[in-house]
């Protein structure tokens, strides 16, 4: 722990700075970012594989997005909602068969070697397409990556691939890793997966299991004067209740991903020096979804699914389970998505009488004990809210005579039970909407997905019309026509209910007010933090 000891010199420089700062006149209110300092943030899990090119998930991005950069990052103002990172320009061919990236000049890997188009080609062909959880679908038709010069990479597709999809996929799916480190040996077993090497503003320094991750400043970073911070420490705090106390005790300065329980936010927002921020997660909307196993004959009946949809009081869920920090959902695309969302879909009001009538109509009348049939309900264990919604859903179903038996599992057992063994009737899941339905939304509905692929349609649902629609949208090049197709997709999903969308939520950060430049892009928590600084 020698890195954390306070030397006499740092104390002296600190006090000198303090003295001079009192002597300086205040120069207006606009704060210029200050250099230096250590940002300590709470981490609730310790991903074993830190390679974001292989595991594109928020738990990994939270740490590794500061080390390994993508071609572009999501942005509130930028063109197409993007901000350049390793690529400074991108252009899609009219036939949808190629996309050309212009790369940034003068970028160096953390080990000093230059970054070139060969690294992009290697990452795309050897990692994103064959190995990455999300890249497998988006880059499935990627055939080759041409590198006419060191700063140009041309992606060649076997089939027309919508440029809109590739653009939307850039922030999450395009982490570039160094070819010279990964080209020898098996990619999955490369030691750099645990100690990543990238081009980002911070270098991986060390990981003490159960204690912390430490990242240190990359002095050779391409961004002018960036990064501002000297160090980022991810303090491992698996217990959710401890994040709030650690913030209050000033042991940490940031708790992202709703590490502070929702019920504590009201109290903590009144603590001086702490801010509750709901911005900065617009690009990672989580959806609360009831997954349905259509192999059960009762659930294969549309009337039964409609009855379940009518039995769920979405407003109650938002108000009680999420304490207002969520929105009710109408369909498979969240309301806050600027490109694809449509409100023009069939809706299901909370109406117990109607739900009961639908079940009677379907021929499942109540037995002598008031029960129609029994179901196995598996709430996903990842969030407090999914578990709590499981408790609520059990009661909501009891009100319409469906006896739901809860089955609790840990994460690994839940994924196996639902996505491999199909040992569920209903499950509560939190899929993520990543800015384009083709990235991680259509696979929740599409048929023909092999067993064992997590967060996909494993409920045995098959609808040829929807499958055809998904296939057509995946090769429609015109953005407007493609958007129209996804609006049609939302309508059909809401009408046929392969799954029931209940609510959608974004995470919440609690942060010390001395931290500057926070929540300034739609994926802030998983962006590179090059411009984040500590004031005072």
């Amino acid at each position: 722990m020698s890195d954390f000891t306070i030397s006499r010199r740092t104390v002296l420089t600190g006090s000198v700075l303090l003295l001079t700062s009192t002597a300086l006149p205040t120069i207006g209110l606009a704060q210029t970012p200050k250099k230096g300092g250590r940002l300590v943030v709470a981490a609730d899990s310790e991903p074993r594989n830190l390679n974001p090119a292989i595991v594109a998930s928020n738990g990994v991005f939270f740490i590794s997005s500061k080390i390994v950069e993508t071609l572009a990052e999501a942005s509130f103002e930028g063109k197409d909602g993007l901000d350049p990172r390793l690529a400074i320009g991108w252009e899609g061919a009219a036939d949808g068969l190629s996309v050309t990236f212009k790369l940034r000049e003068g970028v160096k890997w953390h080990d000093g070697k230059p970054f070139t188009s060969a690294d992009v080609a290697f990452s795309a062909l050897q990692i994103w397409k064959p190995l990455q959880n999300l890249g497998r679908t988006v880059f499935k038709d990627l055939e080759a990556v041409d590198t006419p010069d060191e700063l140009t990479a041309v992606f060649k597709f076997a089939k027309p691939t919508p440029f809109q999809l590739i653009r939307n996929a850039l922030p999450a799916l395009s982490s570039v890793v160094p070819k010279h480190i990964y080209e020898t040996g098996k990619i999955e077993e490369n030691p750099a997966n645990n100690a990543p090497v990238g081009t980002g503003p911070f270098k991986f320094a060390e990981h003490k299991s159960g204690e912390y991750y430490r990242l240190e400043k990359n002095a050779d970073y391409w961004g002018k004067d960036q990064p501002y911070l000297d160090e980022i420490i991810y303090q491992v705090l698996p217990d959710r209740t401890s994040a709030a106390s650690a913030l209050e005790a000033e042991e940490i300065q940031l708790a992202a991903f709703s590490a502070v329980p929702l019920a504590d936010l009201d109290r903590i927002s009144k603590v001086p020096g702490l801010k509750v921020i709901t911005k900065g997660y617009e690009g990672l909307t989580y959806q609360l979804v009831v997954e349905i196993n259509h192999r059960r004959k009762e659930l294969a009946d549309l009337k039964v699914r409609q009855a379940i949809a009518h039995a769920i009081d979405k407003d109650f869920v938002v108000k009680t389970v999420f304490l207002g920090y969520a929105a009710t959902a109408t369909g498979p695309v969240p309301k806050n998505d600027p490109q694809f969302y449509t409100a023009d879909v069939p809706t299901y009001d909370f109406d117990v009488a109607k739900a009961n009538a639908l079940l009677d109509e379907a021929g499942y009348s109540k037995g002598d004990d008031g029960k129609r049939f029994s179901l196995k309900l598996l709430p996903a264990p990842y969030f407090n809210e999914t578990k709590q919604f499981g408790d609520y859903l059990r009661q909501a179903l009891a009100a319409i005579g469906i006896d739901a038996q809860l089955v609790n599992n840990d994460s690994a057992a839940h994924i196996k039970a639902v996505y491999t063994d199909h040992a569920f009737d209903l499950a509560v899941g939190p899929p993520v909407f990543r800015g384009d339905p083709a990235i991680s939304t259509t696979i929740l509905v599409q048929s023909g997905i092999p067993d064992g692929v997590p967060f996909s349609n494993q409920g045995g649902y098959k609808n040829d019309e929807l499958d055809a629609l998904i296939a057509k949208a995946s090769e429609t090049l015109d953005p407007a026509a493609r958007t129209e197709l996804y609006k049609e997709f939302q309508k059909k999903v809401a009408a046929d209910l392969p799954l029931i969308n209940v609510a959608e939520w974004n995470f919440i950060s609690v942060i010390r007010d001395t931290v500057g430049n926070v929540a300034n892009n739609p994926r802030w928590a998983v962006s590179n933090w090059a411009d984040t600084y500590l004031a005072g």
Partner: protein
Amino acid sequence: MNPLRRFLRAPEAIAGAIILVALFAIALSASLFFPGDPQAIAGPALLPPFQDWSLPLGTDRLGRDVLAELFHGARTSLVVGLAAAAAAIAVGAIVGTLAGFTGGLVDEVLMRITDAFQTVPSFLLALAFVSVVGPSLGVVVAAIALGAWTGPARVARAEVLSIRERDFVAGARVIGMHPLEIAFREVLPNALPPVLALSSVIVAAAILTEAALSFLGLGDPNRMTWGGMIAEGRAVLRAAPFLSIIPGVALVLTVLGVYLAGEGVVETTAVRRSLS
């Protein structure tokens, strides 16, 4: 002086007995006072206690009646505690009697198995068992019994070792009784009292283990349990501490009651034995 009067003279024993009687009354009357599903949503969420007299102890995060949950939770605690203790004592007494009465290789094998179980912390054993088999009431009872039968087995064996040398056992042999019949009809009943004295400790430990399992999310999720209530309340510990405190206090009182009443019984019988 008869044992009942002696029992009633010890104040802690009376306190324990009162708590136990109250607990049984609560568990038995749960369906009477709170018919229907105790997990049904009964009012606004997170209502503090003593605000609304139809919901005297307030409501939890989903608006479920805490008092109803407490009553139905008492059932689970008692059922698990008694069933696990009964199973542990039954298994322990049989294993101990067989080992002590037969002696030789059988004794060696059975006692080494007992040793093996004793070297693994009983809570860890229960945790592993439930996470492999999957949580349900029967599994939880079995898991707790799995870690608790070794104590009764050792005590039973020690008793049997001394009883089997007595004259009446020799007599039974002489009249040609089958050895197993001697073991279970003649020896075991006489070895039982000290084994039963362990029951209060086992019941108390079983109730606590069940609560701990539920707290970790390994209880039966379709049943109200006090451990589960504490776990639920933990997420809102700062905002609504009563959700954790109420079932916590119930748990403390129950374990204390079982333990005090058990002690009272042991004291009473011990005095009677020494007098005789």
